[in-house]
Each structure stands twice: as structure tokens, then as C-alpha cells.
């Protein structure tokens, strides 16, 4: 069965510094991968998705992620964070039954 591991439950980073949020997945078949963001008291919003093709995927709000099949990873990056990026970030994978399975999330803290 598909699963997603987000290696960090919380990541503190200074404003305007770069950030990487790590995600590893387990799957024996081809997968579709997603990153979602959840702001306080809101639902989840899609940041970006990998379906096929280029392994570097660009999303909204300046985020990008790189699909690495050999390392089964899909890490999320942003070169310079802003206070408005404070949120919880979820990595997700679709399983062969077309369900989308989420990781436990990484809380991004932006320090002034």
C-alpha cells in the first residue's frame, strides 16, 4: 500500500531564508504526487503536482518540488520565505485505487 512520510513535524526558518520540506513515499507502482498547504482554520489548497514528465515541478507562491524516483522523494523547496508562508504543508500520493493518501504534515514557522 502507498504511504507518505514527512520527515519533519516542524521546520523553523528565518524570513527571506530558503526552506526545504522533506517527503518520502513508498510505492511499487507509478505514482502521482502532490503538495498541499493548509492555513489556519481553512481547508487544504493545492500547491503543486507531479503526474509525469519533468522531475522539477513549479507551483504557486514560488514553491517548487523535485521528484526523485531512485530516492522515492518529493521534497518541497522555496528560495526565500515570507511571513505569509506560515502554514502546515502536506505531501500526498495517489494509490492504485485512485485515493489520495496524505502525510502527517510539516508545520512551517517563519521567524522574524
Amino acid at each position, binding site marked *: 500500500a502507498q504511504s507518505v512520510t514527512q520527515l519533519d513535524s516542524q521546520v523553523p526558518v528565518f524570513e527571506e531564508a530558503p526552506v526545504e520540506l522533506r517527503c518520502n513515499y513508498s510505492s511499487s507502482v507509478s505514482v*502521482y504526487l502532490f503538495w498541499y498547504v493548509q492555513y489556519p482554520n481553512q481547508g487544504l489548497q*493545492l500547491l503543486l503536482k507531479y503526474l509525469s514528465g519533468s522531475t522539477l515541478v513549479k507551483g504557486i507562491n514560488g514553491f517548487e518540488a523535485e521528484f526523485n524516483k531512485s530516492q522515492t522523494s518529493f521534497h518541497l523547496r522555496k528560495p526565500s520565505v515570507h511571513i505569509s508562508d506560515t502554514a502546515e504543508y502536506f505531501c500526498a500520493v495517489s494509490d492504485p485505487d485512485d*485515493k489520495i493518501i496524505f*502525510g502527517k504534515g510539516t508545520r512551517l514557522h517563519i521567524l522574524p
Partner: protein
Amino acid sequence: DAGVTQSPTHLIKTRGQHVTLRCSPISGHKSVSWYQQVLGQGPQFIFQYYEKEERGRGNFPDRFSARQFPNYSSELNVNALLLGDSALYLCASSPGTGNSPLHFGNGTRLTVT
């Protein structure tokens, strides 16, 4: 265009009671999925419906049930509520299944006392 709408936004119930949560998908979306998000955790898959048929069910007890109506809106029902059912219940719609990204509503916060 209206996004995914869920009602009610907040709900307080007592153990043993029954609850019905409602979801209206984005216009044109035929798939609705339900997720349970316990505080501090990622969303856990409960159900997926596509074209009014159940396409998937997560590891939840039979107290949880759902249905999708001809207009593609959906209801999630939970019977015999337990304290552990307290969570944010998220509804998500998508045009289809598989690689179609989910569009989420803001959720229903259920508190069971």
C-alpha cells in the same frame, strides 16, 4: 465560481448521537471525497464517491456512511458518536479520479462531548 462548500462549519454533539455533514462540490465536479483530520495529523481518507457510486472506503467503522446525490452533492453520516470522532471533516471534489487534484472545502469542525 463557488468553491467546495460545507455545512455546518461547526457542530457540537453528545456521545451516542448521530450527525450529518453536507458538501456541495465545485460545479462540474463529479467526484467527492471525505477526509477526517484529527488535530495535529494529516487528513485520513474516509470515502470517495464518483458518479453517485462508492469508489473507495478507508479504514473507518460501519458507523460512518455517506452518499452522493444526483446533483453530485454529498452527505457524510456518523452514528453512535464517540469522543474520538471529534475532528475536522473535510470534503473535497475533483472532476474525476486518479490524477485529478482535490479541491477542498473549509471543513466542518465536529466536537463530541
